[in-house]
């Protein structure tokens, strides 16, 4: 690969790449971690082989790409320029795709997305309701980039923002542009990025460092993983621009242990960028020197916190420390350090190329640009959604997410992970905006949006988050460690039917101290899930405590599985499948669950034929005695 010694070199390379691929079709296969769980690797290989077999190799380019966003439907295959989008593609579909669509230009109807309401088959990706109202400024490029090819990124205009910065913008000018854009940290805190860069630039001390925080620990959030797998160069370019603006000579990318493909892809990206002279010494002939090191996490959610991340980089325990001093003045090795989230860095090249005004054209007054959300849970269309700030929660959940499946009712959407809160139906018209969500007692967080339905117990949700935090807290400070411990004990009691009068008030009291006295943001926000579920679903807590009942029929200790004798057709299925051998009965004898043996695994409910529907869950009521005298079955 020839070294690019100037912006002009980069331009000519881009032109060459565009010329080489002019007129070629692109076949883009989602092959990131989610796709691979559904054998996208096999699909990709089969496509490449079949295309070669049919002699079509010269006319098209096949790309193994990161996530396109519609994860529920992966693996998806996108054919450009027509924009034909095939969903749920299996290896056995490949030959048809090649012979019909790629060779003959005919669409394979059965592989198209079908609109669930109209039944209409949709050909073009942009017309699919899931994608229609999105603004995929950042994530959208995943479709056009093969995960192993820097050339794809360059062909799209990649590194042109860096070239622009290095050949004509002073560092203060760069910082001004980022400030003007209103970009705020996408990792959760929402601190104005330009201001953060400025603090670091002005701080005394050498060398300075810039860090990419890819420790994405919020359960249910995987936006950063998809960006790092699918478009690592966008992050590298942003990091380079930031390094130039701040005056940093060294960069670190901290990737959590659980993201091996992201590590692999970013390491490949770094190597290829170095070969082109886009990293290392005298970048693009500008005199800028910059090295990047990739550092793996070792399984600690708390290391997503800036100061804990820095400690981990230094080979120490991931314990946060109090500020001041802030990392901008004293960070890695005591030097001025700027840490930003993956998505924050990825937005920077766009801001430089298209301008701060363009960035501000989307969003609200206080929250500009777009945000990538992982929209998951009890939802028809789960996946990654990039929406402009200001779109309402309802629009995201229903218009993009498609609403709740199986005819169930929406109950709440949880945002911000373990630091966040739940938002009930009545507040779905809230626009997504940093301040708006904080006012509700939730937070934007890193972008996790978990949709919950009537079968979700929100007391159990609070317990779930506290249980998570109890293990992830570093354990150093008393309010976090002991406060979470005691709150969890109370929640366990409540979910197990041993709640007491005064428990809710005690939870609120402990929560207040945890919030105000903890050392770091993990502790300070640890009480949010509890306080927010109490705020909007207090009655659910009260029913658990006063009636020992779980309205959502979820809390294991408060529910019993019961076979309704009038509905049971004695088909023997649940009897045979019960792993605890807790069901008695026979061919014409009503099946009965022995509650003393039942482990609440739910298998009987799962396997009872839907037309009988004899298994049900009860809560807060005494299980009816088995009818001993009437052992016959009522045949239907």
């Amino acid at each position, binding site marked *: 690969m020839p070294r690019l010694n100037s912006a002009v070199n980069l331009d000519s390379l881009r032109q060459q790449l565009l010329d080489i691929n002019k007129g070629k079709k692109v076949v883009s296969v989602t092959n990131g971690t989610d796709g691979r*769980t*559904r054998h996208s690797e096999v699909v990709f290989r089969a496509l490449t082989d079949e295309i070669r077999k049919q002699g079509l190799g010269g006319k098209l380019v096949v790309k193994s790409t990161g996530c396109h966003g519609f994860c529920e439907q*992966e693996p998806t295959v996108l054919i450009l320029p027509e924009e034909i989008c095939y969903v749920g593609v299996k290896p056995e579909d490949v030959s048809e795709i090649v012979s019909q669509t790629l060779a003959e230009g005919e669409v394979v109807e059965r592989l198209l997305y079908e609109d669930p309401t109209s039944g209409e088959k949709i050909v073009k990706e942009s017309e699919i309701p899931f994608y229609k109202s999105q603004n995929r400024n950042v994530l959208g490029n995943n479709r056009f980039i093969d995960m192993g090819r820097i050339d794809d990124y360059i062909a799209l205009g990649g590194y042109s923002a860096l070239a622009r910065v290095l050949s004509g913008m002073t560092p203060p000018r760069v910082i001004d542009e980022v400030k003007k854009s209103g970009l705020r940290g996408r990792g959760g805190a929402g601190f104005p990025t330009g201001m953060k860069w400025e603090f670091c630039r002005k701080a005394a001390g050498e060398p300075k460092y810039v860090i990419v925080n890819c420790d994405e620990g919020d*359960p249910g959030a*995987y936006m950063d993983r998809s960006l790092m797998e699918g478009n690592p160069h966008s992050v590298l370019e942003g990091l380079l621009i930031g390094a130039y603006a701040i005056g940093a000579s060294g960069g670190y990318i901290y990737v959590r242990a659980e993201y091996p493909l992201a590590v692999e892809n970013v390491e490949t990206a770094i190597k290829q960028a170095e070969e082109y002279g886009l990293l290392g010494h005298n970048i693009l002939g500008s005199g800028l020197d910059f090295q990047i090191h990739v550092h793996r996490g*070792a399984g*600690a959610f708390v290391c997503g916190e800036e100061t804990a991340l820095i400690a981990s980089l230094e080979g120490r325990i991931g314990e946060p420390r109090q500020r001041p001093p802030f990392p901008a003045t004293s960070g890695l090795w005591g030097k001025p350090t700027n840490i930003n989230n993956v998505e924050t860095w990825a937005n920077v090249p766009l801001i430089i190329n298209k301008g701060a005004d363009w960035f501000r054209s989307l969003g609200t007054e206080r929250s500009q640009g777009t945000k990538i959300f992982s929209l*998951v*849970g009890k939802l028809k269309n789960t996946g990654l959604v990039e929406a402009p700030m200001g779109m309402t929660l309802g629009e995201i959940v229903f218009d993009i997410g498609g609403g709740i499946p199986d005819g169930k009712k929406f109950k709440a959407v949880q945002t911000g992970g373990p630091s966040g809160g739940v938002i009930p139906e009545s507040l779905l018209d809230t626009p997504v905006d940093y301040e708006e969500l904080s006012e509700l007692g939730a937070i934007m967080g890193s972008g996790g949006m978990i949709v919950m339905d009537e079968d979700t117990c929100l007391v159990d949700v609070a317990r779930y988050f506290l249980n998570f935090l109890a293990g992830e807290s570093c354990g150093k400070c008393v309010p976090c460690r002991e406060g979470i411990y005691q709150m969890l004990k109370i929640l366990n009691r409540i979910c197990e039917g041993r709640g007491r009068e005064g428990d809710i008030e005690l939870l609120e009291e402990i929560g207040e101290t945890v919030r105000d006295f903890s050392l770091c943001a993990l502790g300070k926000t640890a009480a949010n899930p509890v306080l927010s579920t109490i705020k909007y679903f207090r009655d659910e807590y009260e029913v658990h405590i006063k009636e020992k009942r779980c309205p959502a029929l979820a809390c294991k200790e408060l529910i019993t599985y019961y076979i309704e004798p009038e509905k049971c057709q004695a088909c023997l299925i649940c009897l045979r499948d019960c*792993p605890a051998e807790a069901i008695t009965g026979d061919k014409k004898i009503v099946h009965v669950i022995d509650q003393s043996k039942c482990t609440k695994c739910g298998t009987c409910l799962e396997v009872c034929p839907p037309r009988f529907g004899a298994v049900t869950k009860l809560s807060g009521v005494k299980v009816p005695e088995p009818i001993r005298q009437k052992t016959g079955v009522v045949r239907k």
Partner: protein
Amino acid sequence: MVQTLTEADKEVDEIVAKYQGDKSALIQVLIEVQRQKHWLSKETLKQVSQRLGVALSQIYHIATFYKAFSLTPRGRHSVTVCLGTACQVRGAPRLMDNISQTLKINAGETSPDEQFSLDTASCLGCCAIGPVMVVDGEYYGKPSRKEVEQVISAKEIES
């Protein structure tokens, strides 16, 4: 304090050398050792302590603080259940129960015959297919109790 080692482990020394014996690379060193040897023995920790010049108590804290490390040998087959929020909401606890009952061990444990280790993860990033079980790198979305039992038996026979 110099620890006398009965026999220095060459693999460990190689990994330390790869990071030029840099103290701050402690966690990266341990990650690689864990990956190669599937656990961190007392001798290994002592060796790393001596080679990197980091106090043994510090290393113990790090080895017990970060969940990527195991101070006991892991089973031949790894079973991981995702307990991320999206999977949680889609029934991960019940899946966990099913797996735990089938393997007869709890999360964080290794079966007595050292065949299986069971772990939890807080989000593997494949929320669309949740709840998720991973067995030796193979992902299973929404497995029923029967499927769980089938997969485990197949692995038992494999051994």
